[in-house]
């Protein structure tokens, strides 16, 4: 198949799958599940084939229509970044599809769920392939919609309904800036095409405002400060959704997009991204310590890693950000799927304090979860180590010591919450009936975590050559080479210290009070501080006290002034002017009054006709 044709298939297969499921397979959950999964694997195969057989840039463009002088373009741009992202997204997604078959086995609405996954695939692949800002925006919105739909999967629960709404609206706030950024590019440069824009950038810089505006889209989608509030709530969706959308791919799409348009970002914008990303990483990492829901704890961990990626972008290393995104996709997907397997095994228990001792009951899940955790903690030569330490080191080399300190704190926090998680979930004694009766998950669920966990989380680092094809490594070759052996760099020391004290310390510390959170016992204030809902409270306050009151006030004014005084007064005056008869009719019955109006209107009209 020629590359262009496979790109068409890659993009449109999921849409076809979604349409078929929506129209014919709503009630046939089993068929829908396998159908959607099969298309995901076909896409992964096609993406792998593209990765292995093509080189250089592949482009294609078609104008859908023209609005005035604005052409609505649709096209693909497959470069090295896009190839890697395409591979990561489709590969991880295919395994998560397979996992979902097991996880969603007893769900009545499987058809809707897999239809939603297919729509999501269509949307994210569109972002990966897009060759211009408008098309990126289109798929950007569609990703937001599919995320909304999938978070609302358990729509009869109030928290899921609220979380889906919150995710969509927060994303839209970011998109507001994105649209303005697009309009700005169009006005200033007359094009939205990436290639054309980068040609512009080679002979002139871009103003700060365009970078800031486009960054808003990234802040929303990648849940960066101050639009990060939706991600933890989004865990209300089914666990495979959290793994695919809210850990591995969609939130990473923001990073990918920023890497793609990194030439548009002025130094001030980069500065902001670096600082806020590093701060986010440290803060979110610490907050993960005060969550008892296993998925929420992982969600804070995702926030922290997204902060690290944002920081890498800000430090001027988009290739490192993309590398970390890829590695993070593998190990974080494994962690979420492992959490899903644990939740499934413990009969839908999500509270870590009620788990414990699962190492023996769920050995495969435990082994893969531990492998992915070690990668998450950046144990040397695991996948996460290559990308994360490189970013920390970059901060040191560029003399950004504050950023370096934040990132070091983030590394320590990562080890702390990882150790806590391992201790509470897998070690010790079972803390509830559900955990006592836990069982290992079926093969559809364990296969994906073995492949993603053991295969990619451990080996993606030092066996990159075997696991990630050469053409995809193109992007990451340079940083990998520079990073290969840097054992005496400061970042390595920071990493090793964090590992030793953080991981081992928290493994010990959280064993002290079985069934309770040790930090909460020792220092309830610290724990409360880290629960961190300040922004949620602030936004809620704004909505309840400002937005709602303003809306009600304006509605009242409209009723009072425009509708009440002005209209009634004018209408009353009009009627009075028309004389007693009309006004009396007015009072006696509105039906007749209205008939009078119609007659008057028609007479007036006829008079106009005749008078000419």
């Amino acid at each position, binding site marked *: 198949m020629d590359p262009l044709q496979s790109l068409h298939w890659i993009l449109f297969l999921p849409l076809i799958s979604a349409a078929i499921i929506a129209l014919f397979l709503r009630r046939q959950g089993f068929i829908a599940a396998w159908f959607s999964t099969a298309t995901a694997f076909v896409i992964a195969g096609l993406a792998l084939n593209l990765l292995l057989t093509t080189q250089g840039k592949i482009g294609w463009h078609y104008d*859908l229509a023209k*609005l005035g002088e604005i052409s609505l373009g649709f096209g693909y741009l497959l470069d090295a970044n896009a190839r890697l992202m395409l591979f990561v997204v489709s590969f991880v997604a295919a395994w998560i599809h397979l996992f979902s078959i097991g996880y969603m086995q007893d769900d009545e609405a499987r058809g809707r769920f897999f239809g939603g996954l297919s729509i999501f695939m269509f949307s994210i692949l569109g972002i990966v392939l897009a060759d211009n800002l408008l098309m990126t925006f289109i798929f950007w919105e569609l990703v937001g919609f599919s995320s909304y739909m999938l978070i609302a999967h358990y729509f009869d629960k109030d928290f899921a309904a609220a979380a889906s*709404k919150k995710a969509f609206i927060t994303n839209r706030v970011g998109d507001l800036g994105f649209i303005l950024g697009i309009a700005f590019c169009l006005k200033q440069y007359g094009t939205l095409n990436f290639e054309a824009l980068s040609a512009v950038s080679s002979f002139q810089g871009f103003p700060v405002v365009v970078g800031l505006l486009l960054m808003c889209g990234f802040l929303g989608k990648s849940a960066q400060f101050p639009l990060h509030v939706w991600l933890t709530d989004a865990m209300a969706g089914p666990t495979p959704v959290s793994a695919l959308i809210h850990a591995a791919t969609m939130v990473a799409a923001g990073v990918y997009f920023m890497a793609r348009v990194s030439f548009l970002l002025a130094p001030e914008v980069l500065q902001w991204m670096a600082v806020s990303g590093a701060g986010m990483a440290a803060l979110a990492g610490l907050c993960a310590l005060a969550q008892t829901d296993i998925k929420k704890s992982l969600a804070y961990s995702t926030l922290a890693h997204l902060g690290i990626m944002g920081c890498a972008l800000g430090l001027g290393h988009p290739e490192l950000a993309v590398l970390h995104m890829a590695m993070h996709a593998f190990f974080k997907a494994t962690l979420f799927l492992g959490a899903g397997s644990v939740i499934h095994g413990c009969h839908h228990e999500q509270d870590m304090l009620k788990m414990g001792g699962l190492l023996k009951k769920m050995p495969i899940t435990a082994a893969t979860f531990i492998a992915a955790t070690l990668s998450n903690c950046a144990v040397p030569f695991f996948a996460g180590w290559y990308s994360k330490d490189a970013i920390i080191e970059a901060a040191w080399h560029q003399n950004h010591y504050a950023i370096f300190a934040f990132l070091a704190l983030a590394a320590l926090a990562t080890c702390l919450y990882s150790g806590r998680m391992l201790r509470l979930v897998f070690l010790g004694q079972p803390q509830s009936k559900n955990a006592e009766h836990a069982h290992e998950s079926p093969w559809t669920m364990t296969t994906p975590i073995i492949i993603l966990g053991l295969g990619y989380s451990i080996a993606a680092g030092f066996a990159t050559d075997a696991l990630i094809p050469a053409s995809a490594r193109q992007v990451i070759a340079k940083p990998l080479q520079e990073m290969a052996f840097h054992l005496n760099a400061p970042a390595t020391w920071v990493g090793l210290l964090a590992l030793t004290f953080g991981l081992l310390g928290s493994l010990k510390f959280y064993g002290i009070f079985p069934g309770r959170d040790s930090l909460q016992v020792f220092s309830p204030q610290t724990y409360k501080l880290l629960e961190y809902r300040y922004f949620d409270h602030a936004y809620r306050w704004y909505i309840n006290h400002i937005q709602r009151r303003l809306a009600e006030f304006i*509605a009242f004014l409209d009723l009072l002034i425009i509708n009440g005084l002005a209209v009634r007064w004018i209408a009353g005056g009009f009627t009075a002017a028309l004389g007693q008869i009309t006004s009396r009719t007015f009072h006696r019955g509105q039906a007749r009054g209205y008939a009078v109006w119609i007659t008057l209107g028609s007479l007036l009209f006829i008079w106009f006709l005749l008078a000419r």
Partner: protein
Amino acid sequence: METFSQLNPTLLIAAIFTPIVVGLILLAGKSLPRSFSSAFAFLGFALPAVIAIWLFLPCSEAFGSPLKLRVTGLWGFNLGLNGISSPLFAMTAVVGLAAGIKALIQEVESRNTYLGLILFMLGGTLGVFATDNIVGFYFFHEFALIPTFILTLYWGGEGRRSAAMQMAIYLTVGAMLSLAGILIAMSAAGLSLGEATFVKLFLALHTPQISLPTATAAITLFGFGTLASLFPFHSWAAPGYSAAPTPVSMIHAGALKKFGLYGIIIIAAASMNLGQGSLSNWFLICAVANVVIAGLICLAQRDLKQLISWSSVAHMGPIFLGIWVCTSRGVAAGLDAAIFLMVAHGLSCAALFLLANAVRTRTGTYRFDELGGLAKHTPILAACFIAATMASVGLPGFGNFWGEIGVFLSLKGEPLWLQALIASTVVISAVYSLRAVASVFFGPVSKEITERFSIAPFKDLSGAERLATFVLLGASLVIGFAPHLITRHTNEDAEGLAKIAKIKKALSNSANPSVR
């Protein structure tokens, strides 16, 4: 819109007059058997849709270009379609078909009269967009509007009397004001009503000797604006739509309301001095108020149908802005996008009225505090409602997206704060729309619904309701995936109008260098 070619008169006449003739027969034969009148009425609703879609799609071009069509019709009315009106004509017919299906499954008193009046409304609205002269324009408008009042008054819901009254006052005054402005302009240009086609009016007013006072243009502009619920002349709209029976709200808010917008484009903007000076600024302020103030009012609504009615007012804002940026700044994209949005909004807003009523017929209420968790009982209704909501908040894939994004992008030359204020509609509309979805369909099933369901169990969307929804959302998806279907009609005329606006701007700048 300058040239019309002779083509296919029968089809156009059939599309407009079939509903009217069928409506007359139904009105006359009040005791016709039910099955006969249903079948007959369906013909009246479906035939215009078939013809309009045929004329709209590229396939009809085997007969030549359908875009510039002029027919000498009955009783001296000239009929024709131009680039701006042909998408609106097609949209009207599609909305009419869906509204007709809805009307046919409703149980009402004096059913034949009801159906006949709705058919009149449809025929009149189709006529509005297929006429090429002032007399026909106003005739067809009144022809559609009078049944609207009657239908609201006798078949409407809560508060129908005052709503119909208010609507009658506003719309009559609005129409008369705009007509008065046009008549003054015509007398200045020395045209008589009989010969006043849009083209002649345009040409006559563009001879250098004629200069119209701003007030003339103003009453025409704001007269039309009233009909399209321009702030602050919008007070009739929300109660009017809310009180009207559903098929009437669908045709009125979806299609007939666009009379005012079409009038602004083709008469006020093309012919009169709309684009320059203080009038243009006032228009801009009103349009922004439509976006922001009506949007905020939507946030305060507690009732599903009220919310949809208000959102229909708020969604006029971007359309006004698209027209404004074309007529005052000469940006053709603005008008292209505005027409796109007029079509797409007609479809999505009709779908929302249809589905909201489906909620009401099942649960007996529109109130948010009594609704909740309905998706459990009616998953397909919920899915369709979410789809229609997504269409109306401008999700890509539906036509509304191209309209909204097109308007935003065409405003690229304006100050950033103004753009931000206008684009804030993407957030505001998402907030109130998703809140509505969540409080009607999500969460635990409400007490009221549980009670109601135990007394009178209701079913999911019926076949006819699904068909009507499918027609509307399907059409929106088609233009969403293939936007050129609309723009191939509008591009040329939008460019023409933008060019005129630029020339006028240049002229007024050179005549009056101190004013920008």
